[in-house]
């Protein structure tokens, strides 16, 4: 299944929409923030290069190969991004999870949950792949809470695989903590 180019969703008081070329400045500011980019691949301070990357991405989006989301609050003020990419038959990669320091409490987690819900519930994938830098201990602790299977490692990263079943189990726990559970 493909998402339409105007796809957006509001859930758990959180807004997600697909990235546009004119989001380049916002995305670049996030990725250049030294407090937020320690564990991301390095990007140059080049707005035109970011726009070009987004132009290429829009082709991949049109073909249903990748989805890059901007995440905001209910008023659609944007605070972060997530990305679903490297689609295989039943698997996808979750990444580009980065949020401003002033994001409302819980928004990054809700963005994570909704992004994976889109992948599992709408796009029909059954397995989420993701990697975490070994020295990013807080994010590692967070992701390990999902009880994923570690499928590999190298000098820099751990590689994990998360099933739809485990996602649903831990999602309920997180939503309860975030006061959206029953």
């Amino acid at each position, binding site marked *: 299944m493909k998402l339409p180019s105007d796809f957006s969703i509001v859930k758990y008081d959180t807004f997600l929409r697909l990235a546009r070329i004119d989001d380049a400045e916002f995305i670049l500011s996030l990725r250049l923030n030294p407090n937020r980019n320690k564990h991301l691949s390095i990007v140059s301070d080049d707005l035109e290069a970011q726009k070009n990357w987004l132009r290429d991405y829009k082709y991949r989006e049109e073909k249903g190969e990748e989805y890059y989301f901007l995440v905001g609050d209910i008023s659609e003020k944007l605070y972060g991004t997530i990305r679903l990419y490297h689609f295989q038959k039943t698997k996808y990669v979750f990444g580009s999870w980065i949020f401003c*320091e002033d994001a409302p409490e819980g*928004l990054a987690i809700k963005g994570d949950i909704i992004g994976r819900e889109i992948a599992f519930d709408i796009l029909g994938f059954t397995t989420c792949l993701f990697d975490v830098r070994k020295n990013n201990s807080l994010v590692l602790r967070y992701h390990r809470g999902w009880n994923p299977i570690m499928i590999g490692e190298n000098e820099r990263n751990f590689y994990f695989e998360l099933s739809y079943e485990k996602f649903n189990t831990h999602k309920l726990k997180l939503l309860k903590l975030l006061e959206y559970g029953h």
Partner: protein
Amino acid sequence: MDINSFVEKFAAQFDETDASEVNAETKFRDIDEWSSLMALSIIAMVDEEYKVGLKGDDIHNSQTIEDIFNIVKSRL
């Protein structure tokens, strides 16, 4: 349960913050490393160490580490 060991365990969740800068009166949101993920980490620590279930609202309604300590203590 004493406040000093609670503060110590709270501070241990942070990677880059000097534990000596953290005390009971510290407003945890003022710590640079504070984030939603850190809040989850605190909730997990409290669950593991004290067998007390904190909710997001407990963190949301607290300002200082002592505020959280008092909630945990009241539920022991």
